[in-house]
């Protein structure tokens, strides 16, 4: 059955739901979110659920700070019936190489200048935060108490519920099969449930946003990268903050219900969108974890899964309209950080569509920065 919408958002993850909510809050009617599966069945629901302000570029620091400050109040702002379970127990980010150590000193300086309360720590000071870590494996660490984690399913649902109360329609189990472009303008979205006439499409399809771009004839320089996670049985509270290392390629956190969750990616894998689980990951992750946090070797792994990072060339988001097709907006290329940037994504994309002054200027995050050669390379990514 065909229908008409003022905006069609492709992707029912955190970005799509937050964009829909912000547009609806600004009075836009007839917004449709199209989701191939169920809400946060893609990257949002598969992510490690951590959020941090400790970044290496000013842009990412500002995007993250805005989002985390939003998450602090999200239950109330979104009037959510359950709890998004936001716990700010900090991130301990460890440096394992001299290069990393030098970068971290610079990062802390940048972060502090933007009002982010991070600090530089010696291995001994780091061990006071996680007593069972092997501090001989690190050179230094940084810690920010404002970082934390929250439940991606509930958070996405909170945005979705608030959006639906404002009249947004969310079409679950609906697959986009094509995007209609006439004379350089968006005219509709084809789905397996019919055609939706619309002048505006937002591509918030995460790991699948390259394909969506291709449907509109827009080449987006991104690729999917599989990242895997394992989760252990729940145990009594043991570890407050996230333990993270970039050179060590690990993040490891105890979630509120007691299980440890840890993960990593492998940049050398084929970029074919695979999301199956591998034995290799289980073994390698276990080796790293038991080496760095030996006590955790006693824990049973109960489940593993995989999801897609949507990698951009400079590991920063790609936001806003594109030159090639009028009415086609991007909210993609998050490179593994779409969930933590969800609130700010919702705000800046809604502002961009409505032509409003942006809360945080994002014009330099447009797609064409890559052809201009104006990359804003983020050094601190796991």
């Amino acid at each position, binding site marked *: 059955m065909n229908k008409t919408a003022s905006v069609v958002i492709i992707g029912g993850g955190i970005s799509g739901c937050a964009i829909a909510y912000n547009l609806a809050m600004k009075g836009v009617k007839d917004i449709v979110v199209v989701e191939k599966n*169920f*809400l*946060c*069945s893609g990257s949002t*629901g598969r992510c490690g659920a951590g959020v941090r302000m400790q970044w290496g570029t000013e842009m990412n620091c500002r995007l993250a700070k805005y989002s985390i400050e939003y998450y602090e109040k999200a239950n109330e702002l979104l009037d959510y019936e*359950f709890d998004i379970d936001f716990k700010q127990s900090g991130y301990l980010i460890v440096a394992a190489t001299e290069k990393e150590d030098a970068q971290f000193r610079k990062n802390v300086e940048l972060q502090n200048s933007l009002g982010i309360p991070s600090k530089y720590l010696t291995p001994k000071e780091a061990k006071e935060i996680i007593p069972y870590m092997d501090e001989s494996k690190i050179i230094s660490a940084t810690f920010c108490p404002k970082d934390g984690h929250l439940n991606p*399913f*509930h958070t996405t*649902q909170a945005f979705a519920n608030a959006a639906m109360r404002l009249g947004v329609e969310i079409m*679950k*189990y609906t697959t986009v099969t094509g995007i209609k472009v006439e004379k350089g303008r968006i005219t509709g979205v084809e789905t397996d449930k019919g055609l939706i006439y619309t002048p505006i499409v937002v591509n918030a399809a995460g790991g699948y946003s390259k394909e969506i771009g291709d449907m509109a004839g827009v080449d987006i320089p991104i690729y999917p990268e599989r990242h895997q996670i394992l*989760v*252990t*049985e*729940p145990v009594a509270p043991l570890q407050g903050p996230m333990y993270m290392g970039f050179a060590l390629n690990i993040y490891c956190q105890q979630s509120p*219900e007691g299980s440890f969750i840890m993960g990593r990616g492998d940049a050398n894998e084929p970029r074919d969108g695979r999301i199956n*689980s591998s*034995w290799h990951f*289980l*073994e390698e*992750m*276990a*080796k790293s*974890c*038991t*080496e760095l946090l030996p006590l*955790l*070797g*006693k*824990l*049973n*792994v*109960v*489940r*593993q*899964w995989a999801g897609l990072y949507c990698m951009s060339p400079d590991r920063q988001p790609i936001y806003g309209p594109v030159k090639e097709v009028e009415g086609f907006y991007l909210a993609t290329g998050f490179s593994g950080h779409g969930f933590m940037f969800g609130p700010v994504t919702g705000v800046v994309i809604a502002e961009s569509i409505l032509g409003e002054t942006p809360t945080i200027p994002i014009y330099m995050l447009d797609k064409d920065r890559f052809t201009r050669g104006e990359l804003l390379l983020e050094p601190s990514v796991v």
Partner: protein
Amino acid sequence: MLEKTGIATPENLADITPSKDRMAKGPVAVIECFQRIPCNPCQTACKRGAIKEFEDINDRPEIDHEKCNGCGMCASNCPGLSIFIIDETYSDEEALVKVPYEFLPLPEEGSYVTGLDREGKPVCRAKVLKVLNTKAQDRTPIVSLVVPKELSMTVRCFNIEDYFSDNTMVCRCEEVTLGEVRELIRKGYQSVDEIKRISRAGMGPCQGRTCRQLIMQELAAATGKKMSELRMSTFRPPAKPIKLGALAGGEDNE
């Protein structure tokens, strides 16, 4: 099969099931008596002559469903508890199944019990509409159960405990109750995977071994679909819990 298991097969039942037209007219006796034995109280109890007179006392009863008005006298008189009264006109969605019940305690009218099939497997939640226990029943009370209409020829007994109450724990690892699952289904969560993500049912150490099936049952009941038509949930490795230390090498997985 019947001789070995004591459970009627679909072929056995095909012979004794009243026609659809007759079912649509109101209460009727269904006689699930499959063995030739010297027994005839059902025939003598029927005041309407619906059960044909026996030529040989070993004959199996033969009932004319058109003459039967579902009064239930035969059911109370059957020593084998093999006669049931089925009323498919009770409501659009529900049927009444009246079962002879010789256990104590008797259920209370208005309470909920668990409907069991011929094998004793729980199949649905059933409301006790009436417990008929007068002199005429001669200590074989007839309990009227309200069941989903499609189970009118399935429910044949009940357990007095309400397995399917809202308080029943569906996921023991994460302590999710049936009531919580039902509430999520009412709110529009359409699959086991959606319910798992929002409630954590199935995320614990057992990995959904118990709750997956129970949630599927609940989704099937709510949507009127067969379980085989529902979206399958994702099964994730490892198949059984394994220690990080064992995966890394050097430590045994006890």
